[in-house]
Structures are given as structure tokens and as C-alpha cells.
């Protein structure tokens, strides 16, 4: 049996998950708070979980230290940071800020629960199925090493009570063979689904830092959700002004170009990428396009529409367009798409992102369809 502290631990995890859920909006709108740590892990700063006590204000308290330096030299960092060394029983409380570690499933589950996101039903195309055994159920047969004591005794108690032989004054519960319960494996078929997310972003002069920050934050959460849904997932990044090129993730968020905007250039490159690398029969394809809604000409918009109709829509799960509000953008592209496909189309999902506060709703727009 596990040590009781594991129960304390899981209660603690439950409390922090609740905290994250309550503050999800804050975490999402403040962007950079959640820091990826290695693969599939994140650290989340958690300021106020500790039990409050009457204590001195840090700034007015100051402190004392040891070492070299003259008056006015900074001592760096904050007071109260621990020393490496020996720990001791009954040490006073340090005022460390908590860093919570959470893996991708947990974090995605919080996002999913909070936004009521449906699980994605992957396109039923060729996929590699693998059988996974998980000990999630209880059966009546099994080896002794898997015997579930609690359930066994519960069963014995039930039996004794229904037979009327249970005496509360002498609460002795004796399981017989038929009461034995064992942990049993449930075989689930996990599909090795593959997905690719292709992000396209307008980096022309009208997209400012703030707009890009919104796209960055939004893509973080979209990635998080899709990663939790697909075993095998790839991300591709395209930036465009009047011409489009494929870039690495960090370049994607940092580049700023001037010049005009031809959205069709990005769509063409996207088409090219899909044609070369991703067979739509084997891949779930998610093209995301973010811009401020400006396009060079109505003609180019027409080219875009036909690219969508002829290639992108038939071959992808859904096409998502997020329009980030900017002072310079006209927002025309949104209107054009809305006129053509309507605002609640299944295949073309449109979302307006006014500011950071709106990111969460926009994520729900995109992922709420379960496709």
C-alpha cells in the first residue's frame, strides 16, 4: 500500500488543478506564464497556494547576509531562497514561490474541461492501431498479486449484509473465494493518428508585437490540445507578406516584414507542403491562418477562396482563420470569408480575437467542433 502522503499529494494536486482552472483565463491571457520544460512537461508558477500567516512585509523587512561587497551593492535575488545543504526537521517556513510541474495530459484536460472541448474524432483513414493494456477495471479472476483488497472486503461485506450474517457489534468481515476481486486490464485500441498543424501568419507591417503575442499564446494552447489528442503530431510554420516562406517556430514569432499582403501566397505554400509531405489519406490536417484581415486586392481574395474550395477544404479537417484586431487592419478578409462560408460553417472556422482577454473564447471557437 502506498504511504498516506500519496493521498495528501493527490489532494494537493487536485487543489492546484482547481486553482489553475479557476485562473485559466489569467494564465491564458498573460501568455508566457506556463513554461515548457522538456518534452511534454510544463512548469507553472503558483503564487498563493501557501497558507497565509501574519508575517513581515518583505520590502520593509530587509535582512542580513554574509559576503563581500560595499554599501549599495545589490545582493541579488529575493531573500528567503533556500540554501543547498542539509535539511532539518521543523524548519521555519520559507517563502518560496511554488513551481508546479504538470504534464501535457493534465494541462490539456484542464483546458478541455474548462472550455468543454469535445474530443477530436480523427478522420477514419488509414491508421496504425496498437493495443494497450491498462489496469482500469476489476474482475473476479486473476492472480493473487493483483488482488484488490478493498474491493474484496467491500464485496464480502455486501454479501454478509445481504445474507444477514453481518453483526455491527462484532464487525468481522471474512471474504470467501467468491468475494475475491482482482485488478483487471482493459484493452483499449489506441490509434496512432497523425496530425499536422500548419500555422500561417501575416507578418506585414500592420501586424504589431501585441498581435503576434496573441497568436503565439493562442498557438501554444492549440498545440497543447492537439498534442493531447494525437500521438504523432507535427507543426509547420509559414510567414507571409506579399510572398510566403516556411520558417522555424521561433522565427515565426519574431519576424517582422514590411510590404504588402498577398494571403494567397501563404495558401499556395500550404498547399505545396501538404502535397509534398502529408498525404491527406493518412494525416489529419489543420491549417490555421492568422492575420489582421488586410489583403492586397479583392482579386487575391478570390484566388484564396478558390484555393480553399479546390484543395484546402477537401483535404483538411477544418480550416481556421483567426483575425487579430489591429489599428491598421481593415478586417475585410473576415467579412469576405463570412459572406462566403457563413459564421458557423463546419469546415471554415472564423474567430475574431479582439485582445488577450478574448484568446480563451477564440480557442473554444476553433476547437469546439471536435474535428
Amino acid at each position, binding site marked *: 500500500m502506498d504511504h498516506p502522503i500519496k493521498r495528501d499529494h493527490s489532494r494537493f494536486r487536485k487543489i492546484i488543478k482547481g486553482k489553475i482552472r479557476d485562473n485559466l483565463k489569467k494564465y491564458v491571457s498573460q501568455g508566457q506564464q506556463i513554461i515548457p520544460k522538456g518534452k511534454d512537461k510544463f512548469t507553472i508558477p503558483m503564487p498563493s497556494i501557501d497558507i497565509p500567516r*501574519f508575517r513581515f512585509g518583505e520590502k520593509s523587512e*530587509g535582512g542580513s547576509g*554574509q*559576503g563581500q561587497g560595499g554599501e549599495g551593492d545589490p545582493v541579488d535575488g529575493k531573500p528567503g*531562497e533556500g540554501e543547498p545543504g542539509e535539511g532539518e526537521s*521543523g524548519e521555519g517556513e520559507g517563502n*518560496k514561490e511554488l513551481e508546479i510541474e504538470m504534464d501535457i495530459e493534465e494541462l490539456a484536460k484542464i483546458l478541455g474541461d474548462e472550455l468543454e472541448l469535445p474530443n477530436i474524432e480523427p478522420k477514419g483513414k488509414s491508421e496504425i492501431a496498437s493495443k494497450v493494456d491498462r489496469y482500469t477495471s476489476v474482475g473476479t479472476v486473476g492472480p493473487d498479486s493483483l488482488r484488490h483488497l478493498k474491493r474484496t472486503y467491500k464485496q464480502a461485506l455486501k454479501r454478509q449484509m445481504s445474507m444477514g450474517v453481518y453483526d455491527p457489534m462484532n464487525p468481522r468481515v471474512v471474504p470467501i473465494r467468491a468475494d475475491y476481486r482482482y485488478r483487471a486490464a482493459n484493452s483499449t485500441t489506441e490509434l496512432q493518428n497523425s496530425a499536422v498543424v500548419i500555422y500561417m501568419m501575416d507578418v506585414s507591417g500592420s501586424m504589431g508585437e501585441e498581435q503576434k503575442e496573441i497568436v503565439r499564446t493562442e498557438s501554444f494552447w492549440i498545440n497543447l490540445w492537439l498534442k493531447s489528442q494525437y500521438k504523432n503530431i507535427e507543426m509547420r510554420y509559414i510567414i507571409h507578406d506579399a510572398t510566403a516562406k516556411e520558417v522555424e517556430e521561433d522565427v515565426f514569432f519574431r519576424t517582422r516584414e514590411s510590404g504588402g499582403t498577398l494571403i494567397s501566397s501563404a495558401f499556395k505554400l500550404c498547399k505545396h507542403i501538404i502535397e509534398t509531405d502529408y498525404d491527406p489519406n493518412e494525416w489529419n490536417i489543420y491549417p490555421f491562418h492568422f492575420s489582421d484581415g488586410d489583403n492586397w486586392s479583392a482579386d487575391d481574395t478570390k484566388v484564396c477562396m478558390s484555393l480553399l474550395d479546390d484543395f484546402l477544404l477537401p483535404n483538411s479537417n477544418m480550416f481556421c482563420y483567426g483575425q487579430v484586431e489591429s489599428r491598421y487592419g481593415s478586417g475585410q478578409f473576415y467579412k469576405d470569408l463570412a459572406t462566403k462560408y457563413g459564421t458557423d460553417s463546419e469546415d471554415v472556422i472564423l474567430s475574431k480575437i479582439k485582445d488577450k482577454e478574448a484568446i480563451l473564447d477564440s480557442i473554444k471557437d476553433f476547437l469546439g467542433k471536435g474535428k
Partner: protein
Amino acid sequence: MLRTKMISGKLLDLQREIQGYADDFGLDYFPQVFEVCDYDTINILAAQGGFPIRYPHWKFGMDYDQLSNGYRFGIQKIYEMVINTNPCYAYLLEVNNWLDQKLVMAHVYGHNDFFKNNMWYSHTNRNMMDVMANNGTKIRRYMEKYGQDRVEQFIDKVLSLENLIDVNHLFETNEVVQSRKEKEKQASIEAENGGYMMDDRSQALKSFMNSNKRHDDAKDLPQEEISDFSAQNNTDKGKRDILKFLIENAPLEEWEADIIGCLREEAYYFLPQRMTKIMNEGWASYWHSTILTQKALDPNEIVDFADIHAGVMTMSKQNINPYKVGIELMRDIEYRWNTGKFGKDYNECPSMHDKENWNTKLGLGREKIFEVRKSHNDITFLEEFLTPEFCNRQQLFTYKYNPRSGRMEIDSRDFQAIKQKLLTQLTNFGSPLIQVEDSNFKNRKELLLKHVHGGVDLDMQFADATMRNLYALWKRPINLATIIEEKETVFNFDGNELKAL
């Protein structure tokens, strides 16, 4: 459940060897039990304050989470845990190498001697292992009866007030004498009633229940006694044992009062350790270093020992390392009493040269530090033995917040300033002094607390959250008189929001 096992074989031989040296040096300790365990177990123990069984609460889970992460990423490693019980239990990490174990054992004998002999520990319950386990069982039972969430949330509130206890309680005060007498009386009553009463309610609650009985008796008495009764309000003034005050005066259910009693008992148990951090670590470090360098080390271990020891003694600019300051001050005292560098003659000697080379060959150093470890706590230790030369040699300084640069910056290397800062930091085991001012404030049964301001303001955000928790127990508005930015202010929490009156 806990995967600790008693040491055996070579480790046991090592313990005998180290214990022999401890005896030679005249250390006086409780019987010492060493057990080894893996890192997960030692993390569990550390999260639970050294005890294998505590009451269920998420904060232990939180500490465990942090310790486990810290270990996994190699940020921190706990070599050893030692707890103040009789016999004294200490846990060694099984992956420690041979030298680590040697050092840790010697260190533990230092702690053990300190626990046994320092007067601030004289009232601690050395059967705390059982008490903690009993408190755990009791609280678990309350959880079964009233619901885990309800009880846990109540514990949250009590823990928030955990530092509102009275340091003076560790003295031989009337109250302590009284409570001991009561205990003895209780025991004799129990004996009369035919042996041991199966009553596991906490001691504070029991004595409170007895005093309630007395109040009930008082009602039958004539008028003059009653007038005495109404004067009770004034007697609350100045009380610092706020947990006890709540048990006696807050409208609590019996189980709630009992839980406060349990947590109060545990808080008092840990109090001496918080009051003697520097001395206790200094003493233990003094002995591991003395025993190892003079007796226990093989010549080929010297360099590794120096490496580990230096790691433990790392100085920090952000705070005082109790190991470092403790051991250095112990050594300084030993040196001064060996050479006679103290007292009127030395202090008033006009010649710097004579002072520098002062040596009366007094040789009382060892004797003096044994005496010091018996009668001092951190405050009196620094108050009496901190010298300007010491501060200078140890490169001590004070720092403060500079609002212009937004950083903490070195403020002063002046002896008086450093001493003042250290003493302020240690006053009331580092917690703000909070006392009851009026338990019937405005004649509306509101509670007025007073923060005895010693120059440092309270963190009002924390104070706000704490007052909310206090309100949940007192169930009437809470007031707090304090000084914020040099202005006397009374804050009021009326159940909705915190306002300055």
C-alpha cells in the same frame, strides 16, 4: 508502510565508533537510533516534519511534491533527518557514501546532545512520535465523521494562525506550573476512577473543559464572585497564545476546539527548534567537524570532507546560513574563553597590541560552550557573544530594499546595525508579535488584536487573508491595530472586506 530499517553491520560498527568519540568529548545524549531509508522515504519524512505519521493534510503533499522535484533535478538532497524524541531517531539516506554517513552520524550526536540539554527544550514532549500519530488518528476520525473537505478546510484556517503562540510558554510560568499541577490532578482523578481514562482529547481542551466546569460552579455562587467574572475581558488583554485564547473563547464545536488543541501542541513542540536554529546547527556542525577532523577521518577522506563541509557552510548574501554563523560563533567563544579575551580587563585594555596578543591561558573554552549550549537561545546567544571583530571576520552585513533601483542592496556593515537587524529578525521566532487587545471590542464581541510593532510593517496582503481565516473561527469582525508606513492604523475585517478604520 514506511521503508526504513535499522542500521546493521558496518554502519552499526560506525555508530559505535562515533558514539565512543562523542562519549570521550563528554556529549550527553538520549539513546540514539539510526535507520536508513531511500530518498523517497526521506522526502516523505521531511515533508512531515520528521515524523512517519501525521494528520492528513494537503500541505504535506505540497512539501513532498517540492522535495521530490528538488531531488529529481539534483537541486537539493537531504542527507539526514533527526527528530527530538527519546530515544532520538535519525534517518540516514541509504545512498550516502561512507564519508557522508560518518559526518551525518557525528552531526546527529551534536543535535541529540542539544535536544537533551538545552533548557528551551526542557518542556518538549519526547514522546512526540506517539502524540503525532494519535493526533493523526483523531483527525482522521473527525474526517470520517464530518467529511474530509470540511475538516481539511478547518485545518487550513488553524494552520494560518499556527504562529500565534506565546514564546513565554516555554518558561516555567505560573500557567505552566498550573497546567502541570492540573495534569497531576487529572492523573490522580483518573487513578481514583479506576485507572486510565480512555479520553484522548487534547490536553488544552481538557483543561479548558475543566475550567468550564468551574465557571458553571461559579454561577451558583453569590454576587461578589460574578463581578469578578465580568472583569474577565481585561484579563484577555496581552494574551499572545491566541490559539489557546480561541479554544477558550471562540464559538467552536468540540471537534474544532480539539483540532486547534492538537495543532497547538504540535506548534509548541516545534517552537524551540525555531528559536535555536543557529545554535543547534552551530553546535551539531561544531561536533561533526571536531569529531571527524580529530578522530574519525581516514587521511584519504580529508579532502572530500572539506568539500562537503564547505558546501554546508556556504555563505549567502541573501540570508544568514545558521550552520556557518553558528559554528563560527561557537568556535569564537571557545577561543575567547581559552585565551581570556573577555571581561573588564580585556575590554578596557587601552593597547591594541596587547589586546591582539591577549592570552591568559585560561583554557575554559570547551567548558564555556557546553554552558552556552545549555542556557541560551539564538537571541541571547547573539546578544551576548556577537562581537565587532566577529562581524568583521564573517563579513556580515545588513541589506534593505532600495525603491529607486527596485533591488535589495547592502545597507551597512556597522556592528550595532548588524546586531540590531539579527536580533529583530529572530525576535518572536521571526514572526510578528500579535496579541489580544480586547475580546469584546466596541462591546460588540468583536476581536481586537494588536501588532506590537518592532520597526517592521506587516505584509497586509497576508494579514488580510489571515484575518479572514480568523474571522471564520471567531465568527465576529476582526480588528487589527498596527503601524503601516509610520501611521497607526486599525484594520477591520467585517466578514466582507478589509478596511482601515
